[in-house]
């Protein structure tokens, strides 16, 4: 079936600071193409992500990006140390049989930390 999702990118007024935040938090590789305007994020497995310059502040509900991690509480604590706000602590979602926590980054993007169940990719 056609039309898969291939990419997601975040708006931010400060692409460099946002890149440093995610480099430190998730260890992602970030390519500046060009620096300060559009940054490409390579998590190691596709889909890739991006960061683009946008001055308009965001308000209200936003799309949420789910990142699979081994320990949501540890990543949540690290995100807060880097300036993020806790949205919720780790909890269980019965419908999808998954554990997750979430934060809002300093520029308004919302990330759900999804505990790795070993069902997405073979390690």
């Amino acid at each position, binding site marked *: *079936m*056609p*039309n*898969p*999702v*291939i*990419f*997601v*990118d*975040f*708006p931010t007024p400060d692409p460099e600071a946002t890149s440093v935040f995610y480099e430190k938090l*998730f*260890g*992602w590789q970030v390519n500046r*193409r060009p620096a300060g305007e*559009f940054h490409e994020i390579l*998590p*190691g*497995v596709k*889909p*890739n*992500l991006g960061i*683009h310059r*946008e001055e*308009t*502040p*965001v*308000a*209200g*509900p*936003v*799309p*949420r*990006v*789910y*990142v*699979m*991690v*081994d320990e949501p509480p540890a990543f949540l604590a690290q995100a807060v140390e880097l300036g993020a706000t806790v*949205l*919720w602590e780790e*909890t269980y*979602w019965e*419908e*999808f049989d998954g554990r*997750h926590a*979430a934060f809002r980054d300093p520029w*308004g*993007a919302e990330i*759900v930390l*999804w505990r*790795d169940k070993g069902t*997405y*990719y073979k*390690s």
Partner: protein
Amino acid sequence: MTNTLVFVDLPTSDVKAASEFYRELFGWTVNGRPEGVFHQVVPGEGLHLGLWSEIEQFPDPAPRPPQPRSGLQARTYILVDASPGEYLNKAVILGATALWEQGYWEEFDGYHASFLDPWGNQIVMWWKPADN
């Protein structure tokens, strides 16, 4: 492998109407889990998506008071199987707002067009003719 993107979900004030919009536009399968509150979108390959109600806000255990949306948000890119311009026309007929017409991005060697869906989510349609 951890620290990878596994899912994206989009807020909407009308989960059922948004599901119909995306079924019609992209031919996606949409599963209610539960119906009308949180819908799982299955494009058929690759990442799944979700559509979540701005009222219940699953899976947030403490939903926030409803607030109007403003500003630009994370953009979701869909690899389409025909020209983005054609999909853009179809999206507009279904109620979307065109943000930009089909253009070419040299840095990434791809054609793209973008719309805002009727609930405020920005979609970028991406196409590389050589891939088809």
